[in-house]
């Protein structure tokens, strides 16, 4: 049996968790076993019925009022108890901020090694074989784990959802008991950014700016462009972030975030090694740069040699028209 930790935020199931469920389902079918899901929180009554169509045959609701706010210790306590009961072959997390925080803690509790931020999962001699980028994508490592259960976190936006199944499932509620003093730290408050921003690691399309943007005020152009593209986010190169033109959370590259969107559009980014490492697993790359010799063109599927300040408005108009037509 595969167990998938499903993350909810403000009552909604995260898409990357459904991706992890889908990949668990594909591998579980190969190994002839089923997939269960686990959700932590208080009063988890209001799950969307479509949930089961993404691959889980059983969902465990791990409930305790103290799990209302995320706490690594509380969540690990709840999951560890369930793992002891179910004895799963593998446990999958989405490699989200929460997944990356929680999975290693659970692995340590179980005394097992962990495959972080995987971009591919296969089966080799009855075991799972994980593939993940190392050195921010400058190389790739495939490996198996000698410890059981096999725990992995899967990079968002990489694994496709399964075709929805018409299966119903079973919901099992479990009250988690949390001893006094077991939770020594927890989330107190979510501090929202400006509106409903999508993180670069989750975006399907990234419009990214570098030195060629010339100043902080011009990042507004990219924000306007992102605003008309569904599921998109604004990225930036290290030099743009170091010049304080935009916040560090937007930085793509080895010293920032490694991303794999469907489309990455680089405006005025020359293509330093550490930047290319962080974005070259994007499915399609577009580069707009004045300098025809810029390294970014060596990895770009489409390039425009020209002034980005003339290209952006034209691109915006073109996309607006396209999306209006549907």
């Amino acid at each position: 049996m595969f167990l998938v930790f499903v993350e909810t935020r403000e009552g909604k199931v995260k898409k990357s968790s459904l991706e992890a469920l889908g990949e668990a389902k594909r591998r579980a079918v190969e190994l002839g076993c089923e997939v269960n899901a686990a959700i932590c929180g208080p009063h988890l009554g209001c799950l969307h019925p479509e949930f089961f169509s993404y691959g889980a045959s059983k969902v465990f609701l791990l409930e305790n009022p103290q799990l209302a706010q995320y706490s690594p210790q509380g969540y690990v306590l709840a999951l560890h108890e369930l793992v002891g009961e179910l004895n799963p072959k593998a446990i999958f997390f989405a490699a989200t901020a929460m997944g990356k925080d929680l999975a290693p803690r659970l692995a340590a509790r179980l005394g097992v090694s962990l495959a972080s931020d995987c971009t591919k999962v296969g089966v080799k001699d009855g075991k799972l074989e994980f593939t993940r980028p190392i050195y921010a994508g400058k190389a790739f490592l495939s490996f198996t784990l000698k410890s059981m259960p096999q725990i992995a976190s899967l990079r968002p936006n990489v694994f496709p959802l399964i075709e929805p199944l018409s299966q119903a499932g079973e919901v099992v509620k479990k009250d988690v008991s949390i001893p006094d003093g077991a939770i020594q730290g927890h989330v107190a408050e979510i501090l929202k950014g400006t509106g409903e921003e999508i993180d670069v690691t989750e975006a399907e399309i990234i419009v990214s700016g570098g030195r060629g943007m010339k100043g902080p005020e011009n990042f507004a152009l990219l924000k306007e462009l992102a605003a008309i593209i569904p599921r998109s986010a604004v990225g930036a190169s290290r030099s743009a972030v170091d010049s304080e033109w935009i916040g560090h959370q937007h930085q793509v590259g080895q010293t920032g975030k490694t991303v794999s969107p469907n489309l990455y559009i680089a405006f005025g980014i020359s293509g330093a090694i550490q930047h290319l490492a962080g974005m070259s697993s994007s499915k399609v790359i577009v580069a707009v740069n004045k300098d025809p010799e810029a390294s970014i063109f060596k990895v770009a599927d489409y390039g425009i040699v020209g002034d980005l300040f003339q290209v952006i408005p034209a691109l915006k108009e073109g996309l607006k028209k396209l999306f209006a037509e549907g």
Partner: protein
Amino acid sequence: MNILVFVKRVPDTESKIKVNRETKSIIEEGLNFIINPNDEFAVEEALRLKEAKGGQITVISVGSEESLTTLKKCLAMGADEAALIKDDLKETYDGLRTAKIIARAVERKFPAFDLLLFGKQAMGADNLQVPSMVAEMLDLPQANVVTKLEVDGQKGTAVREIEGASEKVVFTLPAVVSAQKGLNEPRYETLKGIMAAKKKVVPVITIEELGLSKEDVAPLVEATKMDMPPARHAGKIIQGTPEEAAKQLVSLLRREAKVI
């Protein structure tokens, strides 16, 4: 405040990485090594906490003797003491193994502490595992990928980055905190610091001394393959005026690449 900071020596982020497919490892010859940039934020944060509240900073690295250079850099930045846990195994990409060594070293050699500071992840293995694992092994609260840290008595508050927002985490001390870009701006070493660091003796601790056997620290990650990313090739340069090129790009992205 007694702070332990954990640092790692990693290949420079500006270097090209080459892979030996047979040994399933990276080729280290010709690589320039630096302190893991995330760890520099951790060292800087420790220095700022010490400046505000007093205390002692000990910087610890698990690695080969070459990591002494990394530790000396931290001493030159202003850390009080350093220690090397000598581990001659090359990169194992196994976070659990490193966490086991660190947790045991803390228990046996550095039991008095208020804060364990890490960089969020080592550039290279990119695991983001060790801080959480050490926190679990030592039964401590954790705050990872933090961009703000405040300590008041036995209480800590941190802001950590999540998707499209951040969250405020409250915890009690002692605790594990991992640093990332945005937390602070690491200082440069001063000449005086470099001179003082030269004179400091860095004790070397072996894994055996920590009471860990070969089996205890045997890697559980078994590499089956290491490779370079699939090569990308330069594609089409779209000609024409900016307006024409943009129009054509939209059409190509829809009809040919099918990504919008």
